[in-house]
């Protein structure tokens, strides 16, 4: 009773053992947590499976496979920072890919125009989502749940069973690889997006407004931030990114598949939340999001290599997600 508060607190701090301190440190930065997990997992896999895991071909496959989710995470992170999200990204991705396929394959237009149209179709889908959410005022969950089925259905209506093959010039957009690492273009596109997007969201005042919107939309509105306009822009960016992912995916296979991206929205949201986004909005970084994607990709790869089987994959990813989010309870700077 006689001890003054600061003293009592230091004594308490000292009693905390090393483990607790590490947990606190990790809890304070989701990026750091994920980075440590990714490194530990990669090292462990390299030691246990030196012939299968750290090979050039395996790395190439892992990085190429995570590209579409990685691109989408950039947009999803932005939306979730602003306190909203988009469930229709998988359908947008397929719809855009199919339109690029139709333009290049059936109509025989140039590959450049096909790529452009694919991205535009995606942006248009995003615009529609954004208008429904901001103008009509339908909750994003319901609005994009609706467009998820609408866009998928429009994809079937447009191309039936898909467009195969599209055209060699178009395929080149998804297959071109760099001379050094020989990784195909979707990965490089994703890398550029992550770097540019990461800088934009972390540093520029325009994108910084999303943190305010997610933190308290009414206060943001009354601070003179154009909440609806920004959310609309966020949805358009999300749609354009889904369009790009769809176009590059179709190009890589030289085939626009109508079932492309089924279920990808949940993968993307999982990675985004794992990367530090909150459903309430106001927090998260693109770096965290991409580390989330990388971590999930490594887990999947590990499962395939050690032949535990694909069936266990979801269990592990789910447990890691719950673990990472529960770490928040140990945050030192969090609100009481």
């Amino acid at each position, binding site marked *: 009773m006689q001890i003054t508060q600061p003293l009592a607190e230091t004594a308490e701090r000292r009693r905390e053992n090393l483990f607790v301190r590490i947990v606190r440190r990790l809890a304070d930065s989701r990026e750091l947590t994920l980075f440590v997990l990714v490194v530990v997992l990669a090292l462990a896999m390299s030691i246990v499976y030196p012939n299968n895991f750290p090979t050039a071909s395996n790395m190439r496959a892992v990085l190429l496979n995570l590209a579409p989710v990685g691109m989408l995470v950039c947009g999803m992170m932005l939306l979730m920072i602003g306190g909203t999200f988009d469930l229709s990204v998988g359908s947008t991705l397929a719809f855009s890919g199919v339109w690029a396929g139709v333009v290049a394959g059936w109509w025989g237009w140039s590959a450049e125009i096909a790529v452009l149209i694919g991205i535009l179709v995606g942006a248009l889908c995003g615009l529609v989502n954004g208008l429904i959410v901001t103008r009509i005022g339908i909750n994003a969950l319901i609005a994009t749940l609706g467009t998820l089925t609408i866009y998928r259905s429009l994809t079937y209506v447009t191309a039936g069973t898909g467009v195969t093959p599209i055209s060699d010039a178009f395929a080149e957009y998804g297959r071109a690889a760099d001379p050094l690492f020989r990784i195909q273009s979707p990965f490089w596109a994703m890398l550029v997006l992550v770097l540019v997007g990461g800088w934009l969201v972390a540093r520029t005042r325009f994108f910084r407004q999303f*943190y*305010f919107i997610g933190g*308290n939309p009414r206060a943001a*509105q*009354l601070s*003179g931030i154009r909440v609806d306009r920004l959310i609309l822009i966020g949805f358009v960016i999300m749609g354009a990114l889904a369009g790009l992912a769809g176009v590059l995916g179709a190009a890589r296979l030289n085939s626009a598949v109508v079932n492309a991206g089924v279920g990808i929205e949940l993968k993307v949201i999982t990675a985004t939340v794992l990367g530090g986004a909150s459903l309430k909005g106001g927090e998260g970084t693109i770096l965290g999001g991409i580390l989330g994607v990388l971590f999930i990709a490594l887990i999947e790869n590990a499962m395939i290599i050690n032949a535990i089987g694909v069936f266990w994959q979801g269990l592990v990813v789910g447990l890691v997600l719950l673990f990472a989010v529960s770490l928040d309870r140990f945050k030192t700077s969090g609100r009481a």
Partner: protein
Amino acid sequence: MAPRLKINGLSKFFPGVRALDDVSMSVEAGEIRALLGENGAGKSTLGKIVAGVYSRDQGTVLVDGAEIGTLDEKAAGDLGIGIVHQEGSLVPQLSVAENIFAGRQPTQWLGQVNVRAMREQAKALIAQLGVAIDPALKVSVLSPAQAQIVEIAKALSRDLRVLILDEPTAALTLTETGKLFDVVRRLAGNGVSVIYVSHRLAEIFSLCHSVTVLKDGRLAGTRQVAETSTDELIRLMVGRDVHFSRSATGRKIGEIVLEAQDLDAPPLVRSASIIVRAGEIVCLAGLIGSGRSEFCEAIFGARRRHGGQIRIGGTAIDPKGPWDGKHAGIGMVPEDRKAAGLFLGMDIVNNVAATVLSRVSSGANFSNRKAEALARNFVDELRIATPSVRQIVGNLSGGNQQKVLLAKWLAMEPRLLIVDEPTRGVDVGARSEIYRLLRALADKGVALLVVSSDLPEVLALADRIVVMAEGRTVGELPGDGASEEQVLRLATRYTASVAEVRKQPDMAEA
């Protein structure tokens, strides 16, 4: 006979804070005890411990002489201790009856809720409080005062021995407050002990028998209301004498900054006009629901306007959203600082920067350095008590939050600053500081439009008082020499005449 509630040596720690330190008090059956103190003095914490919302770290609690071991919300309910929270605990989508019996609805066969019995019992409970509210109504359609009554009925639905009211009148009008007091007195007359947590001294003098004052988590003293004075209670709360006197500054009042004419923004604003000059503090007074906040929102662009003109510095503006108001040089500090003003989860730097993102940027880049410098300036200038500018705003006390909110709008250097309820939920010490700040702003030539329901505040601050009633500006008084009675007469007389007109719609039409 043992007292109804006895607390001995109660202490409570939160991380880094000793919220309550060795507090003892005892309350008799049928006694109305006020719990008074500045924000952060621990009065709400004390109430919540007695109601079992928080656990205690040290000390004993005795109810009717029996010592209580673990005291959680269920145990408190079983003991007959009820609490009406500041935030309210009702589910707006459900009916009054359903809310009163939440989780304990009377049932019939197969566990079905017996709706009829539930409604009848709810009706009886509400009737005990001397009011009539249809128990079938949804809570969302009730007025804040009716919702309070339902909260009390909910506490009453179990054999109530101690009722804790945490700032119950914050959202109530004067008449509603009067009705609530009748209910509280009736309960006390039936032997219920009431712990009444409030900032408002006037209420304590009109309602309570005794008052316990807390300061920084410690007991500062307990007095019988009949034997104490406002001055003594304020001294106990802040440890010094505080006066809200008018300061005779001889401020220079300049040109017209805001001229709003016949603003029409239904349903709450119909034909309101106002003029505010540079260096002038104009207070907008009126009863709750008279359309003051809505009038201000319409000026700022946060509310759709159907008619009327707004001029800022002689130039007509037509704000379509808050960004337009801001662009014209208007700042608006909203009434509800938590819901509409601050980013509670963000730090001081980001909150202050929210209105001036372009100023704290270099090109497209947000500059943390510039934003921190700006925030540091305001922390010094406004004397915001915080360990660092990176402190999360949700962790600050009410008074300091209010200062951060002011800083957010001062950062944009407004020509006209609208402040809606500048000191709601702010303790006495911080209050006089906020007055000092507002006066200093006016001295610098900013035009200030202050909405306040607190008449002493209006009289202390205003150079001119504009009174609103029923969505109209109905009168004007000079700030110097005006009395509370004059303001109230203006605010209520108009209401009465409108009511008369409404009684005879045919004649009014003709």
